[in-house]
């Protein structure tokens, strides 16, 4: 049975062979790590979450530099050579410029950690700072509300 209707997708990230998604449930977060043939699930209940920490990383800058350098290299090759080689190098240069621009406009990268009493897990589904801040802004009031209700009930 699909649980899609019970959850709202917050964010996703990953690479070629692994996909990470974070889903918002009624009283918990569902973190899905999907490999080629297996899906793994972790649930973080709102009343257990102690902290959410996001920190900026340098990979955004590094990738911008690497991609820009590759673009420049292909551009030089396109200018220096002629014939089909020049066309291929030109196409590659345009591709690199487009990827660099996409990476640049997506904004700085980040790493997000969720802490409970028994674990400190990195959430690979949030890789851009802008998106992570937005997700944290969504989650913060929900978690605070649940934890306040639990505290009142325990009194």
């Amino acid at each position, binding site marked *: 049975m699909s649980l899609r209707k019970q959850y709202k997708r917050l964010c996703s990230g990953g690479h070629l062979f692994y996909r990470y998604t974070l889903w918002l449930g009624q009283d918990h977060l569902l973190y899905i790590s999907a490999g080629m043939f297996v*899906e793994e699930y972790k649930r973080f209940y709102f009343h257990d979450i102690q*902290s959410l920490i996001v*920190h900026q990383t340098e990979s955004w800058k590094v990738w911008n530099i690497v991609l820009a350098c590759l673009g420049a290299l292909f551009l030089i090759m396109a200018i220096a050579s002629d014939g089909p080689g020049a066309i291929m190098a030109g196409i590659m240069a345009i591709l690199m410029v487009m990827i660099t621009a996409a990476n640049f406009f997506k904004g700085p990268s980040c790493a997000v950690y969720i802490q409970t009493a028994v674990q400190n897990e990195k959430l690979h589904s949030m890789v851009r700072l802008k998106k992570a801040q937005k997700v944290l802004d969504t989650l913060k009031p929900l978690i605070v509300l649940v934890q306040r209700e639990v505290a009142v009930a325990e009194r």
Partner: protein
Amino acid sequence: MIRIACPKCNGELSQNAFNTSSLTECNSCGVRLRADVFPAINKQTETGLPGEALADGTEASCFYHPQKKADSHCELCGRFLCALCDLEINAQHLCPACLEIGQKKQKFTNLENHRILYDKIALILSIIPFTLIFWFVSIITAPATLFVVIRYWKSPSGIMHSNKVRFVLAFIFAGIQIAGWTMFFVSL
């Protein structure tokens, strides 16, 4: 005293950095971060209750610990349980054995921690031969695909996907390959 470590340098974060809703700098490494800390950080970790010892021979005892007093019963099998064996899942009181069986049979979705994606396996098996280098392996992968599709048709797909599209596609691709091999052998 709340202690939250910087995920980058593991140094202790200043309490001024908590719940600012914007990026601040770590005192130790200077990395820009945002730390949302919740009241659960002050909560003591709950520990399981030990079973209460039987006062006399007339009291009902736990099925698993005969020397402990029964506190409740399993709602699936009816066995008496002490406080230690009483497991509350989805507002149901269960014994460890029923919980284990339920988890194996995937009765409790919120306890499920992994799924094997048989539909993806079938689809990849059926697609491999279409990459021109490996076309000859279809003599093995096509029947294997059909086996996976038939054997695991009822297995659930990913937790957020309930359709059988991948299985159907895998079945069609494998069918085409088997038809191709049949025509090849007939023409010989």
